């Protein structure tokens, strides 16, 4: 569905992504894990054209989308749940969700119900400004807002950032649920443990390069990954 080939991105004068290639198959959950500054966020941002790649190709459903504008890419069915949630604090929950569907001209009634079904809490807080929600609720809103565009591929940038463990569990449950309903997911995380458990395929990124690939389970059991990301001592 999404194929990245030899992608290079310069970010503020440094080469943040140094030629990576990976693939996201339709219906799967793929995760990119890695430490701060590995280039994970930059990769996602370049897929939706928020930063321009220096070279390489990004193919979505057989079509090269490098150089297309963000709104065109969103229309094609890719949305990004940005890092740190970035909901619109002064708009109500409902307005936030409606903004998510901004690129669509058809009726959004069914999708509102779908999102409210996934996140009953949002329905309760429909008229509240987004900024007054708790961190976990804001993350739900950020995911719900992205779902309102009816994406084929949803990309999430650190959805567990700054959330309590029990809330993180809830977020990952939702991710699996969304995936079950047919949305492909590309997830980047520092919480490697949770991400690898949820993922079909994982990629490990280090300083702009992909250094390891495998199924979620393989990586979770890999000694090096364990040592570097899962906090277990090398034997």
């Amino acid at each position: 569905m999404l194929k990245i080939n030899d992608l290079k991105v310069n970010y503020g004068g440094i080469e943040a992504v140094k030629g990576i290639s990976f693939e996201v198959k339709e219906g799967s959950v793929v995760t990119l894990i890695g430490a701060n500054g590995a280039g994970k966020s930059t990769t996602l941002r370049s897929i939706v054209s928020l930063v321009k790649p220096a070279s390489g190709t990004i193919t979505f459903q057989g079509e090269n989308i490098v150089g297309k504008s963000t709104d065109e890419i969103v229309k094609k069915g890719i949305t990004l749940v940005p890092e740190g949630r970035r909901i619109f604090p002064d708009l109500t929950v409902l307005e936030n969700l409606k903004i998510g569907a901004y690129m669509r001209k058809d009726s959004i009634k069914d999708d509102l119900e779908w999102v409210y079904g996934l996140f009953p809490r949002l329905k309760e807080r429909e008229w509240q400004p987004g900024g007054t929600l708790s961190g976990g609720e804001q993350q739900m809103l950020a995911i719900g807002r992205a779902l309102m565009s009816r994406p084929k591929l949803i990309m999430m940038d650190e959805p567990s950032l700054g959330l309590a463990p029990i809330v993180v569990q809830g977020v990952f449950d939702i991710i699996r649920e969304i995936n079950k309903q047919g949305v492909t997911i590309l997830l980047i995380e520092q919480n490697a443990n949770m991400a690898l458990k949820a993922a079909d395929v994982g990629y490990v990124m280090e300083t702009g390069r992909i250094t390891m690939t495998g199924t979620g389970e393989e990586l979770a059991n890999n000694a090096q990954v364990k040592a570097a990301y899962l906090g277990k001592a090398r034997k």
Partner: protein
Amino acid sequence: MKEKKKSDMIISAVLLAALFVVVAVLDKRLSATGIAMTVLKKGCIYSLVAVSMNLLNGFTGLFSLGQAGFMLIGGYTYAILTIPVEARNSVYQYFDGGIVQFALPFWVGIIAAGCVAALIAWLIGLPVLRLKSDYLAIATLGFAEIIRAFFQWDKLGVLTNGSNMLRKYPSFQSLMFPFVVAVICIAAIVLLINSSYGRAFMAIRDDEVAAEAMGINLAHHKRMSFCISSFFAGIGGALLAMYQTTIQASAFKSNMTYEILLIVVIGGLGSITGSVVATFLFYACSEWWLRFLDSELMIGAFKVPLLRSGFRKVVFSVIIMLIVLFARKGLMGDKEFSVAGIREFFSKRKKKEAGS
């Protein structure tokens, strides 16, 4: 909920109709040259301009200071297009009657005023809207000053009458006219803000990156907001020209923009009704209610200290400082004054009383 919404709509419509009647009565009763009339007329005109500025600064989050420039463009466009042909020789006495030798009806002139202002805004927006926050403010302020100088340029005299004033174009006497135009324009802006475009503007204000990630084309929407705001500022400029019966570019200084910005901030960035209420309060205070501070007052043989010409402005500044200190988000914040809001306010009170 739906039922209540419907009844609120009806109440709002009734209130608006009542306001029309009040304006009609005031039109008959108040002296046309009295201070109350001046305040009301200026209030109507400037509330439109303030709301247009709020659309840009309060709802889209673009800090622009070009409003006086766009009012100037609107005012001049109106005047140039509507001066009757037979009056042109006396108006353009130094420029052989000017080059425009036709006159349009006043309402075409008003619409043209908005359109020309929007067109210029589009052109200025191409380079300027790439800037953000303070830089955008400086650039738009600079453009407004350039426009002012440009319209006074001698070489353009055949069109703008150089630094001389334009006059003899159709104007209005009644209060009803600026009131109706302002109501129509503000209603249009309210409809825009409540549409999906309005939501997109507010999303850009709240978080540009997230808005872009949602597929909102930033450049397109900013340009749109800038042009629409300038369109209504242009219409406001045309109304101002009509009200003054003469127009001269040198009057559209950056002071005028600051005054409008002050009104918008006092009313609350992001509140339409706040801007309107603040406009009327602002002009009532500065032109009317505080006048007594400017004249010397003797109580018996005692001369009240401080009261002298200009003291009004001192008191006025203090009031503004107090507002900024104690109501940091303006009088209304980003709330609106609405029938539903009032009902909610009273029902909350009732609940509190019942609870205590």
